């Protein structure tokens, strides 16, 4: 199945792209999508303890399941305001 990965702020800079489309093995979770991403780009790994995640533009958890066509986002600590 295919998922869209969204990366923001410094995660986007580290990856060199804000949007990636990847084929992943099912059944997938946010965690498994992340593991695949870090295997591809190890420098992203430093965010594992501080980032938040979202599925289809809603906050989610690493354990959440991911379905075909989902948008999975990885978010560095926020700094709005």
């Amino acid at each position, binding site marked *: 199945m295919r998922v869209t990965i969204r990366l923001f702020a*410094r995660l*986007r*800079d580290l990856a060199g792209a804000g949007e990636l489309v990847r084929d992943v093995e099912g059944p997938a979770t946010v965690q498994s999508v992340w593991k695949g991403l870090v295997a591809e780009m190890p420098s992203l790994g430093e965010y594992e303890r*501080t980032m938040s995640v979202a599925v289809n*533009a809603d906050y989610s958890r690493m354990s959440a399941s991911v379905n075909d066509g989902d948008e999975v986002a990885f*978010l560095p600590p*926020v*700094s*709005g*305001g």
Partner: protein
Amino acid sequence: MSLLAVTPDPLDLPALIRSVSGSRAGDGAVASFVGLVRDHNQGRRVSFLDYEAYEPLAVRALTRIVDEIAQAWPDTLVGVHHRTGRIEIGEASVIIVVVSPHRAHAFAACRYTIERIKQIVPIWKHEHFEGGDVWLEGATADPDDESARQTAYRIACA
């Protein structure tokens, strides 16, 4: 004018005040907060900021904050506009307006809003300063973190 917005356009406080207070002639208290881009930060001379947002989730997070406020201060009405993209020194990055019959509630909900924005709204500052640039990173966003919410509520002096 929508009461909640994440927008690349310059922010208009009087217009937001009109939108929030327009339909509430019974409410006498309007508290507002404006965040301006500063010319320095942590010893660096800032040139400008570039704000990035995960826009649909940012609007959802703002909606959540407004829902929390409706629970805590049911007599308030809140408007929040957050700007994205390049923002120059002295320009507003965020404007918050709260109307209420009670000034205590207007002030508390306004303060609560800015604290919660900094906790859970997916927006990031990219600071461009003399000699470089850096992404600022604050809180790990977790809307279900009840202790963070309680901290914001306590700071709001509710």
